[in-house]
C-alpha cells in the first residue's frame, strides 16, 4: 500500500496560518492502514490545531471528515459539495493522489497536504514499513527471486552487485542487506542461477506522468 507520514506540525501550521475554518480531510484507504491519515489521526491533527490557535489567542473552527477513497472523484465530490462554504481551506491527510484529486475537482479551493507520501511499501511489523516498489512499469521480480534491485539496492543497479558489500551488508549502511547478494541466495535456493547469466535488457524508464487506459472498461461518453 501507499505509505505516508504526517508533516512536522510547524510546517502544517504555517500553511494554514491565516485561515479561520479548516476542513481536516482524512482518507480511509491507504493512509488509514499506515496509521497516518485515518479518522483517528484526523482528530489528533485538528485537536493540535485548535490547541495551537487557542494558545495564540487566534480564532479557528475545525471540521473533521474522512473520504472512503480520496483518489476517487466519486468519493470526494459529493462529500465536499455538501460541506461547501463550511470551510475555507482543505487540509488533506490523504496521499499525494488524494490531494491532487481534491485540487483538480475544486480548482479554486486552497488545498494543503498534511502528509508526505513516502513510497509503495510492505509492512515489516506493526508500525514499520519498508519501500518495496518504485512503480518503474517494467517488473523483473520473476527473475530476481522476488527481490527488487531497483528499490532494495541502494544504487538501484540492474546488472549485479557493485562488490562493495561486506558480510552481506551494503556499503551505504550497516543495517541494509545487499539486495544482489540476497537475490543470489534466493536464486540459488530455487536453482535459477542461470538467470544471472542472461543478458539484462535495458530498462525503459517511464515518462511521468504515466497513464493506464483500459478501453474495455471505459464508459462511452454520451455525445
Amino acid at each position, binding site marked *: 500500500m501507499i505509505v505516508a507520514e504526517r508533516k512536522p506540525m510547524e510546517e502544517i501550521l504555517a500553511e494554514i496560518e491565516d485561515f479561520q475554518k479548516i476542513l481536516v480531510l482524512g482518507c*480511509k*484507504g491507504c493512509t*488509514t*492502514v*499506515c*496509521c497516518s491519515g*485515518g*479518522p*483517528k*489521526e484526523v*482528530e489528533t491533527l485538528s485537536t493540535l490545531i485548535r490547541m495551537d490557535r487557542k494558545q495564540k489567542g487566534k480564532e479557528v473552527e475545525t471540521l473533521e471528515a474522512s473520504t472512503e477513497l480520496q483518489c476517487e472523484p466519486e468519493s470526494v465530490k459529493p462529500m465536499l459539495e455538501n460541506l461547501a462554504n463550511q470551510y475555507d481551506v482543505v487540509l488533506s491527510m490523504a496521499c499525494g493522489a488524494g490531494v491532487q484529486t481534491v485540487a483538480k475537482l475544486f480548482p479554486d479551493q486552497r488545498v494543503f497536504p498534511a502528509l508526505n507520501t513516502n513510497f509503495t511499501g510492505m*509492512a515489516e*511489523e*506493526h508500525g514499520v514499513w519498508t519501500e518495496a516498489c518504485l512503480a518503474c512499469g517494467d517488473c523483473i521480480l520473476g527473475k530476481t527471486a522476488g527481490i527488487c534491485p531497483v528499490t532494495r539496492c541502494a544504487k538501484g543497479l540492474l546488472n549485479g552487485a557493485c562488490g562493495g558489500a561486506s558480510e552481506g551488508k551494503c556499503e551505504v549502511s550497516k543495517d541494509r542487506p545487499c539486495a544482489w547478494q540476497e537475490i543470489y541466495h534466493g536464486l540459488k535456493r530455487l536453482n535459477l542461477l542461470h538467470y544471472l547469466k542472461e543478458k539484462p535488457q535495458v530498462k525503459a524508464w517511464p515518462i511521468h506522468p504515466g497513464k493506464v487506459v483500459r478501453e474495455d472498461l471505459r464508459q462511452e461518453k454520451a455525445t
Partner: protein
Amino acid sequence: METELRTGVFICHCGINISGVLDIEDLCEYARTLPGVVTVQANLFTCAETGTSEIKAAVKEHDLNRVVVAACTPRTHEPIFRASCQEAGINPYFFEMVNIREHCSWVHRHDKEGAQAKARDLIRMGVAKALFLEPLETFRSKVEPKALVIGAGIAGMTSALAIANQGFEVILLEKEVEMGGLLRHLHKVAPSDMTAAELIGEKIAAIEKDKRIQCFTSAALEEVTGYVGNYAVRFSCGDESYSDKVGVIIVATGGASLKPVDLYNYDGEHVITQSELEIKLKDGNIGAKSIVMVQCVGARIPERNYCSRICCMVGIKNSLHIKEIVKDAKIFVLFRDIQAYGVENEALFFKAKEAGVRFIRYSLESPPVVEDGKVKIYHAGMGKEISLPADLVVLSTPIVAHDDAESISRILKVPIDEHKFFLEAHAKLSPLDFATSGIYLCGNAHYPATVREATYQALGAASRASIVLSHDTVERVGTVAAVKEELCSSCFACVKVCPYQVPHMNERGKAEIEPMQCQGCGICVAECPAEAIKFAYVSDEQITAACEALYAA
C-alpha cells in the same frame, strides 16, 4: 438515546469518613445543578441495607435511568450497587461510582477547601460520564459437557478419571502407542513401594472400564478453535481424522528426561542415566558393586537454570533399591543440594543415609570428573580431591519440555516460558489455570512434579475444569470490544496488538472480535486508526465527557 435522561445522585457520609472532611450538604446542593440530575440524596451508609433500599426506592419513585453513587472505591463496592440497580429494574451498567473517600476525604484532610472543590469536580465528571453509559448484556453460550485431556501420563489419566467420575464425557489423547507416560520407564515409585507398572495398570484398567472416556493412542492434536464452553477440536489418530466439540481442555502433556549427550562421557553402558538404571532394577541385576550417582547433570546451569525438583528423590529411591538387591554395594551420591523437601522425602533421605549411602557435596565451579572405573571429586570437608571407585556411574538428568510443546502452545494459543514449560495464569494462586479461561494444566507440562504432586495437580485441574462443565451455560459480561464493520479499513492493527490474539479477519474481509474471548482491556480500541472498534463499557464518548467536565470555567 432513549427517552429523557433521568439521573439520581446518592452521596455517602460513610459515618464520618467522608463527612468528617467534606460538606455533604454543599455537594448535594451542587449535584442538583448538574445536567440530567432529577434527585439527590445523602445517607449515612449507602452500602448498608438502608442505603441500597433507598436507591431502589428512588429509581422507582423518580423513574431514574442513570444512578451515580459518590462514596468509596468501586473496586470493592461497585458489585453491591450494580446489584441494587438490577433489582430496581435498570441495566446494572447504567451505574457510575465516584470515589470521594479513598481518593478525596481520606487523603486531603489537611486542605478541606481543596478537597471540597475536588469532590465537586469528581461528582460533575461522574454525572457527565453517566449520561453516556450504555446498557451491557451478559453473553450466555451453551457449555459442551465434555472435556478434552491432552496426554495420558499419570496426570492426564488421573484428571480424565476424575472428570468422568463427576459424570462428564472425556476425550483422552495420547501421542505414544500406549498410555502411561514417563512411568512406563520407571520400576518402583517411592515411597509407596508400588511398582510403576501396577500404578499405570490400575489407571488404564479404570479408563478402559469407564464408558464415558474415549481414549485415542498415537493421536495428534491438529486444531482448536472457539472459546470456553465451546471449543471445536480436530485431532488425528493413526490415519483417521476426528473432530468434536468440548467445553474445557486440560494440558497434561508431561515432559521428557534429558539425554545427557556428551556430559560426563555418558555412554549408556558404564555411564548411564537414572531411567536406564530403572531397567536394570526391573530385571533385578545391577552388575556393579561400587556405584557413583551424579546429581544436577545438565540442570541448574546457565543454559538450563532451573531445578528439576524430582531427580534427587529418584536418585535416593534407586540407591535404596540397589542396596536391597546388592547388600554390600558401595554407593556415593555426588550432589549440589538435596531437594528432599517435606516429611516423606526427608524421611526417605534419612533412610538412605542409614542404609550406608554416602552423600558428597560438589559445587557448580568444581564438578566431579568421570574416568573409566573411577570418579574424581573435590571433597570440601577434607579440603582435597579424592577418587571414588565406580564400576557404574548413574547421571541424574532433569525433566525437560517435550519438543512438541511449542506446536501445542500455538494450537491452543497459550504461552510457554523460556524453558518451554506451559505458563500458568498466576504462579501462586492459579497454578492450574491458563490466563485463557477454559484451559487448564497439570503435571510435568507445567513444571517437574513427583507422582504425588502430579496426582493432586491432576485432581485439582479436574476440579477447575468441572466448574465450567457443572453449568449448562457460561456467562461473559458485555464489557468487551466490538468492531463496526462498516468503518473497518482491514488494516490488521487490532490483530497485531491484541495480547490475546482475539481479533481476526472474517469472511467479509473485516475485523471481528469474538465476545467470549475478548478480555476487555481496550488496547485495540485505542490503536484502531479508523476508530472502528466500539467499547460500550468505557467508550470514547464517556472518556471525552469526563475530560470536558474536568474544568468548570
